[in-house]
């Protein structure tokens, strides 16, 4: 009997040690760990980065920005524009197809653009000066504007959500405030809805009929050539993801924790690199409608106490190469970057002066409702530092620990915190979205119409309008400096610093590029 048991144990061990066949045959299957759970696929009605990243695989765009953020033709063959930037005519490439086999026609693009214009800040600018958006034939259509809009191509090709993705007309006619529920795309990968397990996996499969452009791929521009048959997004927490990457169970991790990077680097099979040189800007977002931060003095006091070093070390760790102080609202290292007006964030922090200002404003010791998304490492770290800062400034902090989805819903409420509203939440903006005001939703100070927090400053709005009208780089620079100064005056939000994140992948993956979003085209697995 004992011998028989032993035999059984050996047999069982043999079963366990057998190589995973499914894994062996998957050289064209990429397993990717995204930054967060993919809960929807609508990058027009929603602005989450993770949704945008998935949508970019499934839907193509008329234009696409390259690494220099210059829009290049993608689905369009080209365009014609009159001298005063009012009449824009576009012509689609021949042979474009949706994933259901139907050809991409002008009316699909028009419907897609109309839905996008309702939700996007630049789209709204276009809509506000548009006389008509009309089809000429099945492959051509035309914008007729009554005021010039030179940045139209950038608006169509920008990478930040809401993104101008081209969908079939029937999907694009969904209410812009409702999520789409059919995912027939125009991009290089098809979304496999039946294998989608929200919170766990999302599967993309190669679309064989995608017409690849001949140019080399460059971010959203050029030929989106898929060298993979199947991309599996697996959602897992950072602790598990670290182990899975080391064990070769996943191929690519979008946002490895900075603390795990030394461990990953020590593994000969793993490559680690900065994900995006344009980095990110951390944001402490205040509600300008509700006390105490409806008073600009309270907002300024917060900036006087805000230590970017604390925030950045909490977010990215001690590696000084990964972050830098940012007395600005704009991405450092870009042509128009300005620190004008940012002195309040420089030098040693002065809590006493801040408290004095708070007591002048009559809000010393006021109650502050702080929303913290604890499921996202970056916002969790920012939230805990803010909790510490608010306590130091004598506020009575109501720390609401919740998840990113709930923060997303609750931040839209303008009610007082006691009725489900809020005072502070945290997020971050990709550096590529903060190079200038065009893609920079969070900079807008249009009051009720502005992004969550609803900052209101006609002065900032005027400066932004100046930038749009700027004829050359010097004028743009001047306008940006004025925006920065005005934004610090009104304290649109609290920049918590500039930081870079890593990405990590197994070395049998090649073709990974640096970008503010994962670029899957050109990526190969051996």
């Amino acid at each position: 009997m004992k011998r028989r048991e032993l035999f059984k144990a050996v047999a069982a061990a043999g079963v366990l040690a057998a190589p995973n066949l499914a894994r062996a045959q998957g050289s064209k299957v990429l397993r990717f760990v995204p930054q967060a759970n993919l809960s929807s696929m609508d990058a027009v009605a929603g602005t989450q980065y993770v949704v945008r990243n998935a949508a970019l695989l499934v839907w193509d765009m008329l234009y696409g920005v390259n690494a220099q953020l210059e829009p290049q033709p993608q689905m369009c063959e080209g365009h014609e524009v009159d001298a005063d930037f009012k009449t824009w005519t576009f012509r689609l490439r021949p042979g474009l197809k949706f994933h259901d086999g139907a050809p991409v026609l002008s009316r699909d693009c028009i419907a897609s653009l109309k839905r996008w214009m309702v939700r996007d800040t630049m789209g709204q600018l276009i809509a506000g000066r548009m006389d008509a958006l009309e089809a000429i034939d099945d492959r051509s259509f035309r914008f007729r504007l009554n005021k010039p809009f030179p940045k139209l191509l950038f608006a169509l090709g920008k990478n930040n959500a809401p993104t101008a993705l081209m969908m079939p007309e029937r999907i694009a006619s969904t209410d812009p405030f409702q999520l789409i529920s059919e995912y027939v795309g125009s991009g290089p990968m098809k979304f496999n809805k039946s294998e989608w397990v929200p919170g766990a996996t999302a599967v993309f499969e190669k679309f064989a009929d995608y017409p690849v452009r001949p140019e080399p791929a460059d971010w959203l521009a050029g030929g989106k050539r898929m060298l993979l048959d199947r991309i599996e997004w697996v959602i897992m927490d950072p602790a598990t993801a670290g182990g899975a990457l080391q064990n070769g169970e996943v191929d690519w991790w979008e946002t490895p924790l900075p603390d795990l990077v030394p461990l990953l680097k020590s593994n000969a099979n793993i490559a680690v690199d900065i994900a995006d040189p344009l980095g990110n800007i951390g944001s402490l977002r205040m509600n300008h409608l509700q006390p105490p931060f409806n008073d600009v003095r309270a907002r300024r006091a917060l900036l006087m106490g805000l230590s970017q070093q604390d925030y950045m070390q909490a977010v990215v760790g001690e590696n000084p190469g990964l972050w830098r102080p940012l007395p600005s609202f704009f991405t450092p290292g870009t042509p128009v970057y300005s620190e004008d007006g940012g002195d309040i964030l420089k030098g040693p922090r002065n809590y006493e002066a801040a408290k004095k200002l708070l007591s002048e404003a009559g809000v010393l010791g006021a109650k502050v409702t702080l929303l913290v998304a604890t499921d996202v490492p970056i916002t969790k770290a920012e939230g805990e530092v803010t909790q510490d800062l608010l306590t130091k400034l004598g506020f009575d902090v109501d720390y609401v620990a919740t998840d990113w989805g709930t923060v997303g819903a609750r931040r839209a409420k303008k009610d007082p915190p006691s009725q489900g509203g809020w005072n502070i939440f945290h997020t971050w903006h990709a550096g590529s979205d903060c190079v200038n005001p065009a893609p920079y939703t969070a900079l807008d100070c249009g009051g009720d119409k502005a992004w969550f927090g609803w900052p209101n400053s006609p002065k900032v709005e005027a400066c932004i309008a100046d930038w749009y009208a700027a004829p050359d780089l010097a004028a743009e620079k001047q306008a940006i400096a004025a925006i920065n100064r005005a934004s610090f005056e009104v304290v649109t939000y609290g920049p918590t610093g500039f930081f870079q994140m890593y990405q990590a992948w197994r070395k049998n993956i090649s073709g990974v590029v640096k970008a503010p979003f994962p670029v899957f085209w050109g990526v190969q697995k051996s």
Partner: protein
Amino acid sequence: MYAYAARRILSTIPVMAVVALFVFSLLYIAPGDPAAIIAGDQATPADVDRIRASLGLDRPFIVRFGEWVWHILNGDLGQSIFTNLPVSHMIAQRIEPTLSLMVLTLILSIAIAVPAGVLAAWKHGTWIDRLVMIMAVAGFSVPVFVVGYLLAYTFALQLDVLPVQGYTPIADGIGPWLRHLVLPAVTLGSAFIALIARITRATMLEVLNQDYVRTAKSKGVDQRSILFVHALKNAAVPIVTVIGLGVAGLIGGAVVTESVFAIPGVGRLVVDAILRRDYPVIQGVVLLFSFVYVLVNLGVDLLYTVFDPRIRY
């Protein structure tokens, strides 16, 4: 016996009714407005009211409860607030990993714990007995996620013999399926093994002290046959009962284990849903797990009549 079985089966109906009422009213009084969440960032109050009416959220409690129960009886658990997918579909997608994990844990736990408990009782008072008891108390006291990370660190990362995470459907082969489930099952089983080992030891001690066992011993019946045929059969009722009741603990533990090992099961679904306040999903999962638990214990009670025909109730 059939009358007993029928009565026992009928008795689950009021229990399930109470569960349904409890689960429904829990989430009925939930703060937060699903309509406002669905309406999204930029909706007007009128939009929210329209959505609320279209969801039927403005009707009285009893009407909504009745309708809810009616839908459940028709297999409709409602729609997730966040993904807009039917809850029954989301659960169906994730039920296989959870069931696999729980069944494997159950088998593994029984396979380890019952012999250990029998051995401890047989060697009562020796170091073997003490060792088993120490392991059992320790199994209770170490939180399940600590066990999970320890095992993952040792077997997956240091020794590199098993995967760290994930799940492979059983359809892809029994080997990969088992490989992915071994560590989670041991993790989840740690407390369960302790529980079963203790109860087995205790009831075996009691049975071994009874006259007929002593008689059998004195007649020189083979030790092994005494232990496993005579004694264990008589100790089976309490052991099976504890296994049935312990399934509640397994369900709770599965929620954590699935998170630790990134297994796409129902447990992780409910954790995600709770952080997002996705109430229809929470309702569905709690109801499902409660139903499973009630069924398991119904099965256990019916098993009694097999193990111990004297039981008639």
